[in-house]
């Protein structure tokens, strides 16, 4: 497949291009292109979690029950204040320790715990080996928690922005409380929430460049590997430090993703505005 594409491109551009084309389609580069999937999965799954946590956080924040309201405010205010990189490093490891703690309570015998005092986990059965995909899931959840806090704030504000008269009118027409919440408040809320959510999405999209911190072989890590200087012919093409070239490609990738996102949000906004009176 790739060979035939190269052939046709060489025919089109001339023989000088062959080496370059073969270089950017070698196995290492192909793995780089394929690693975009981690970025996309993290962004999309992270966004899904963020909306979920956002709705939950917003619902808690305006709950009639005071303790729930406190939990909602605590979540939104504390998590928003923690740098995303820090939380991103903290959460997966803390979660792993927590799971291992649960395992150690159920799987380790008392003798094992006594004989392995000081080492963690106390027995092999409680060991949780984190691998690439586990890290990816944990990364998505961390993104969800961090950006969910921002989304909760946006959604909470948007719910407040829904004209009170609309809800009163709905109530007057005999809709139940639940129906009023879902069919009027949440339905109309999107119009006000989308501009804010699009901001949160942009932040989340940019944060996907942190995946390599968790040793996920994402586009940033591969760009690093590909651009690193190589002086050993056996290891592939000999070249000096080319990282800036690869980072430049990543710049372009992220800018393209941003432009694409803007389009999608425009479309979503138009959809959310259907049947709504022009809001100003």
């Amino acid at each position, binding site marked *: 497949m790739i060979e035939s594409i190269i052939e046709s491109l060489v025919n089109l551009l001339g023989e000088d291009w062959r080496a370059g084309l073969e270089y950017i389609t070698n196995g290492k580069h192909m793995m780089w292109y394929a690693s975009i999937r981690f970025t996309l999965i993290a962004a999309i799954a992270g966004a899904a979690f963020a909306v979920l946590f956002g709705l939950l956080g917003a619902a808690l924040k305006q709950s009639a029950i005071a303790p729930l309201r406190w939990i909602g405010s605590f979540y939104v205010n504390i998590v928003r204040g923690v740098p995303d990189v820090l939380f991103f490093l903290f959460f997966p490891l803390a979660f792993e320790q927590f799971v291992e703690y649960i395992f150690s309570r159920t799987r380790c015998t008392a003798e094992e715990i006594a004989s392995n005092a000081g080492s963690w986990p106390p027995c092999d*059965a409680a060991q949780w080996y984190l691998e690439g995909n586990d890290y990816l899931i944990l990364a998505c959840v961390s993104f969800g928690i961090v950006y969910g806090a921002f989304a909760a704030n946006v959604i909470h504000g948007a719910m407040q922005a829904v004209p009170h008269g609309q809800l009163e009118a709905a109530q007057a027409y005999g809709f139940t409380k639940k129906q009023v919440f879902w069919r009027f408040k949440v339905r109309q809320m999107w119009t006000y929430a989308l501009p804010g959510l699009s901001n949160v999405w942009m932040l989340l999209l940019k944060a996907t460049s942190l995946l390599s911190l968790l040793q996920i072989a994402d586009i940033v890590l591969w760009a690093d590997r590909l651009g690193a200087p190589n*002086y050993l*012919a056996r290891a592939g093409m000999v070249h000096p430090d080319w990282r800036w070239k690869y980072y430049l490609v990543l710049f372009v990738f992220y800018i393209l993703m941003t432009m694409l996102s803007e389009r999608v949000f425009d479309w979503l906004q138009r959809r959310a505005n259907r049947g709504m009176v022009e809001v100003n």
Partner: protein
Amino acid sequence: MKKLLLTMVLAAFATTGFAADKVRFGTEGAYAPWNFMDDNGKLAGFEIELGAELCRRAKLECEFVVNEWDSIIPNLMAGNYDVIMAGMSVTEKRKETVMFSDEYYPADPSRYAAASGDKFDFDNLKGKKIGAQGATVQAGYLEANLKEGNTIKLYEKPDQSVADLAAGNIDLLLADDSFLKPVVDGSGGNIVFVGPGVQIGGGVALGMRPKDTELAGKMNAALAEVKKDGTLDNMIKEFFKKGPFYATEEKSAMTMESLLKKINALEMRVKELEKK
């Protein structure tokens, strides 16, 4: 949420069971010619080939995983893999946490590399920017001996240190001779060796958790075999153009099996050449 937690717990179960039958080797994958990623995106290098050979002889199923250098010992202890094979020199400090096998590469002096044309007074280094990879024996040496009056810069990855030397951000780079040699040779004269070699640390060996004595026994047995029949010397020669270090007089009394293997390899080579 529940489903997700369930999948996570299941994944944890699956991986715990899995890790028991396969021996996992942790390596850096960025330290040519020891271990690196070739243009096909696959791990290659001296240690990848030697590791495969050791596992074949010890009748173990093995796989290599990539791990950053600075967390390579903690992640061995955490059980992410069972063996470190990443050009790691034996030191007293590391012996406190890691159990080492017999060496598979002799103690190798570290060398300084610099941009060609720069002159240094090695008896009295002052006001220089000196680089090394972090958490290495070289980093320890610089911190202990040359911190006064010089600036020490430590890098996460070995290739970053080379890139910074090439860019003129550091005056000197201290690293393993075996790593710097291809850099100097491939730099087209821009980077050269300077000054005397410095002997730091011992030979290079496999690192394992202290409790895995059975695995260490198997590895040492396999290492003894490859040393005795000259396989290791040949690999060292192929990758580093050095040696022989390990083969004894018994080399002449090679086993029938290894002779046959050699003949086979030669035949393959001849066929390859004919094709060309």
